[in-house]
């Protein structure tokens, strides 16, 4: 009898702590993992899903867990791969061409004449950068658009297109000196 009580008690205790640990693992996993944080900090936050995950954070988690490679983010480009390689102490590798090319940054623009106010693009935008209401014209907040292109496909009247971000006087940059590029080559 004593024996059975002991077994039951110990079993219950083990089960309870197991549950507790499992719960803790889930509860504290995301906030507490500095590796995920640091990987996420290197990703461009375009939230486009081209890497095969729902957003940059999930991709960061997958890399940390060893489930994803470091060359799956086209918006981050070759520079992004290099930064990840540096952080994780791995060799840089070329961007996976299957997932799409590295492109200059763009911004989505809605042709406000053709927009029918269906709200489908709002539901697609990963950063809530589209404003509008049912049956009313929609518009993109350019400052907040990450250029992920996720709103293009759902639009039933194809009234959204991507526009290159042309430099303005405040974003213009001095270029790498050309004379030297020649001398160095």
């Amino acid at each position: 009898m004593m024996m059975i009580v002991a077994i039951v008690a110990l079993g219950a205790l083990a089960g309870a702590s197991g549950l507790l640990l499992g719960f803790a693992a889930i509860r504290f996993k995301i906030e507490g993992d500095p590796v995920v944080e640091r990987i996420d900090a290197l990703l461009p936050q375009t939230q486009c899903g081209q890497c095969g995950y729902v957003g940059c954070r999930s991709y960061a988690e997958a890399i940390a867990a060893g489930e994803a490679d470091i060359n799956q983010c086209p918006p981050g480009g070759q520079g992004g791969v290099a930064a990840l390689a540096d952080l994780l102490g791995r060799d840089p590798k070329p961007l996976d061409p299957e997932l799409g090319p590295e492109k200059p940054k763009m911004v989505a623009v809605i042709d406000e004449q053709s927009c029918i106010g269906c709200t489908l693009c709002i539901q697609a935008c990963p950063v809530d950068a589209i404003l509008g209401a049912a049956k009313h014209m929609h518009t993109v907040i350019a400052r907040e658009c990450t250029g992920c292109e996720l709103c293009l496909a759902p639009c039933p009247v194809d009234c959204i297109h991507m526009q290159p971000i042309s430099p303005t006087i405040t974003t213009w940059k001095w270029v790498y000196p050309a004379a030297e590029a020649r001398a160095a080559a």
Partner: protein
Amino acid sequence: MTPPFPFHGGLKTVRHKTESNRETILPGSVPERLVVPLRQHVGAIAKPLVQAGDRVLKGQMIGQPDGYVSAAVHAPTSGRVVAVDQQPVPHPSGLPDWCVTIESDGQDRWIERTPVDYQRMHPSDLRNFVRNAGVVGLGGAVFPSAVKMNLSGHCERLEQLILNGAECEPWMTCDDLIMRERAVEIVAGIHILAHLLQPREVLIGIEDDKPEAIAAMNAACSGTGYQVRPVPTRYPSGGAKQLTKLLTNKEAPVNGRSTDIGVQCFNVATAYTLHRAVAHGEPVISRIVTVTGHIAQPRNIDALLGSSFADLIARCGGYREGVERLIMGGPMMGFAMHSDGVPVTKATNCILAVGADALVEPPVMPCIRCGDCVEVCPANLLPQQLYWHARAKEFDKIQDYHLFSCIECGCCSYVCPSHIPLVQYYRYAKNEIWALEKEKQRAELARRRHQARMERLEREQREREAKLRQKAPPRTASPLDGATAGQSPAEPALAAPASIAVNVERSE
């Protein structure tokens, strides 16, 4: 040791001052059309106050300062606004920027001018007045003066107020001429600065190749206690840090401000405009511009802001044969312009036409590690290290060598026997680092917005489920479910949550 206290490095450059400083300042004319940029200062672009069709008077504010680090812009003459749009401006990119275009009515009629009694004004009101008068640093940096007229937090009291009349750029003479001709008004402007900043001493630094300016300033300063201090002619003595060292032997810490060592520095022409604004109620609508180089009759012109470079060059008799390049600023620190159709701004201290003969650009050779650049660097940097890292795009390492202390004076490029365009590398690296920083901020914003969206979707999902359970037949619903569902708000229209989320984000 007695002053001047030499700064490290620097150069003796070939001087071309006499080309343009033999004639007096030529009064400006009123062109038929003025294109006035709304961004003529460091900081936020001024907000336009006029639109096409409006009539404006000379001195009327047409661009309002937008925030603390900003400055107003005014109509340089009376007339009609014909456009508020993007026009070519004097910028190395050649890109357009927002401008107000005014067609002159030929009457040059002033708005009512209201001088103020600065001695009775609250310091903060005076600074606001200065910001609204469009007063900015006229040495070329165009930093809003009102900001520099506020010491709060940086030092208790100013040790030295320095007036910069060094003018070390080889071709430039606009400060020389303004000191010769308008010394009394410059000193009146210094009184205002001294009243506000209460410095222990006022020092006026002038390179010793300007004897007339030194004499004029000495005469104007007699009885004021302000000290005119000639400094040796050595480029770049007119850099704020270099002049401070020369006059006080003090050096601001790396990444520090001049006020950390109790010093504040203003250009002499800035003091002049400050006086005009305060004592005459005249905002900054003109400036002295040196037009020189490959020009028929090089000269200084008191030009209305918004006049085109071409107008000024025409008034100096036009170009001489064989002009290859047009530079705004001096040959050491200036920028090549894409056209002479751009307007004069508060930053236009000099327009320099360069002939083909002066434009020999020998081929770039590899760095031979001679160390000449280190010898001349007035900022005490290691230019060839900066060069190596900029060339290799190592933007972390380059900052260990204090890239951002580089004043882009061009001394290193000037002496480099391999003719490496060193400063171009530093400008490139600085721009890349700023861009990366901005990109990081953008990414952080997107990360937060994405997270907010995911949380919202989750919440909506929970609410939907709760609602479904509530609608389900009562016998399967537990009392607990009913309670939660009852407290949750009705499901909003599909598109509404997005706008709510946006509003929340923006109001942060």
